[in-house]
C-alpha cells in the first residue's frame, strides 16, 4: 500500500498533527518506506493464531468502585497552560 501526499495529510490530521507543504514530499517518502517494511506482515501465514493483546494473558483486574484518591484538582490545575474558576480554558468553541 503506497500513500500519496493527500493521504498523508489526512492521516496527520487524524492524529492532529500539521505537516507543512514544504515537508510533505519527504514525510510521504519516509512513511512509505516504513510501510513497505510493515507490509511484510501480510506475507506471513498466521493460520488460526489468536491475536495476543497481553504478554501474560492476564485479564483486566477490577477494583471496588469507591473513592481512593484525594481531590488534587488544585495541584493538577497549577501545571495547566490556562485555567479559570476551576476549569481548563481553551479558545471559545461555541459563540
Amino acid at each position, binding site marked *: 500500500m503506497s500513500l500519496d501526499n493527500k493521504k498523508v495529510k489526512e492521516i496527520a490530521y487524524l492524529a492532529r498533527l500539521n505537516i507543512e507543504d514544504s515537508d510533505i514530499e519527504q514525510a510521504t517518502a519516509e512513511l512509505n518506506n516504513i510501510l513497505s517494511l510493515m507490509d511484510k506482515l501480510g506475507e506471513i501465514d498466521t493460520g488460526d493464531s489468536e491475536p495476543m493483546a*497481553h504478554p501474560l494473558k492476564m485479564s483486566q483486574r477490577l477494583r471496588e468502585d469507591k473513592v481512593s484518591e484525594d481531590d488534587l484538582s488544585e495541584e493538577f490545575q497549577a*501545571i495547566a*497552560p490556562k485555567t479559570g474558576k476551576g476549569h481548563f480554558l481553551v479558545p471559545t468553541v461555541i459563540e
Partner: protein
Amino acid sequence: MHNLTVAELIKGLKNKDFSSLELTQHYLTRIKSSELNAFISITEDEALSQAKEADKKIKQGDSSILTGIPYAHKDIFCTKGVKTSAGSKMLDSFISPYDATVTKKLNNENMVMLGKTNMDEFAMGSSNENSYFGPVQNPWDVSKVPGGSSGGSAAAVAARLSPLATGTDTGGSIRQPASLCGITGLKPTYGRISRYGMIAYASSLDQAGPMTQNAEDAAIILTAMAGFDKHDSTSANKSVPDYTQCLEDSINGLKIGLPKEFFSEGLDSDVEKVVMQSIKEYESMGAEIKEVSLPNSIHAIPAYYIVAPCECSSNLSRFDGVRYGYRCEDPKDLNDLYLRSRSEGFGEEVKRRIMIGAYALSAGYYDAYYLKAQKVRQLISEDFKKAFNEVDLIMGPVSPSVAFKLGSVKDPVSMYLADIYTLSVNLAGLPGMSIPAGFSGNLPVGLQLIGNHWSEELLLNAAHQFQMRTDWHKHSPAEN
C-alpha cells in the same frame, strides 16, 4: 570512590568509610564536570538534603540497605516537584504533581536522586539522538552514540557519574544502551515493576529495570523496584524474592540455547566473536550449549513497529495542550490549539510513529496491520515457549554492531532494523539482560541473556557467575 559498585558502597556506608553526603557531593561534582550530556536535570539541592536525611537515618539505625545510595533516574519517571520531560519539548516545563511508584519505592529506601537522565523523546529511539535536549555522547568514544532510549542512564553508569540508574525497555531501551556502553542492564518480565507514573510509550511492552555495573547490583536494585502495585492494572500480583539470594548457585548443567536466527547475516563479525567466546566461557562452567530455533523472530521488526506505534498514537493523544505540557502561542480556535501544540511540541520521530499508528488503526486497515501484528506476536511468543521446553536460558547478541557514529544513521528504517535481537523479548513479555562480554576495538560488546517468564533469579545467577569469571564489567572508559 566512583568505581565502587552498589554492593561496595553499601558496605562503605555501613563501615562509615564515607557518609552519604560525601558520596553525593562526589558524584555531583563528577556530573557537573561531565560533557556527555547524560543528564537533563541535575537535582543538586534535593540530592544534598536527601543525603543529609539518609545520614541521619543511618545514624539513628533507622535505615534499609539502600539508604544513602545515590542514583540517576531516567527522565521518564514522574518525580514530584521536579521536571519530568521524557526528553520532549512537550514536557519541557512539566513539573510532575506526583511520584511514580518506582520513584516512591526508591524514596522509601531513602536513596538519593542525583538527577534525571537524558533519553530519546518518549523513549522512541535507539541512539538517544531523538532527545529535545540534544544527543548523549558514548563515554568510550564521544563521537559515538550511547544507544537508546535509556542512553543517558547507560552513559552515566559507564562514566561512573552514578553508581546505578533506572531505565525503561519497550523494544530494547535498557539492553541496547547497556551493551553499547559496557554496563549491565536488566529488563524484567512484563508486569514485574509498576508502570504507574512511568510516562507511557507502548503500554503492552513498556517495562522498567535497573542499569548497573554488575549483576549483583542489578539484583539489589530489582529487589527494591519490583512488586505489585494496585495503581497499575497490568502489575502482577506476585511476591518479590530477594534476588541476591540465588547469585552464588552453581550453573553446572544449565541448558543454554543459541537461536540460529540470531547468528545470521547482518551480525558484525567482531560482535559474533565476542558472543561465541562468552558462550565458551559458559561451557567451561559446565553449561550445556544447544542450538534452538525462533523461526518467527525475523518478523519481530514489522510486528513491533505496528504494535508500538499503534499504542503510542493512542497514549500520546493525551498531549493536547489543554491540561499540561506545551501549548502553542495565541491559538485561534480549539483545532488550531491541538494542531499547533502537538506539531510544535513533538519531535520528528515521535510524529512519525504517531502517524504510523494513526494510519494502522484507521478504518479499513486495523485487520491488515494491528490485528495481524498481534497474531504474529503470538507466533513469536510460541517460538520462545517451545524453546524453553528444551533449554533454561537463551543467549545471543544484543545489537548487530557496536556503537555507531553520532549522526551516521539518518534513515528511520535502518535504525529500526538494528533492534532485531531485542524486540521479540518485549513482544513475548520475557525478561532479558545485557552484560559486558568483551570489546571490538575500544568499544564494548554486550551478551544478551533471555529467560522464561519470571526467571529473573536464574538470569541474575547466570550473569553473576559469568562476572565472577571475567572482568569485562570492571572496565570503565578513560576519564575525559
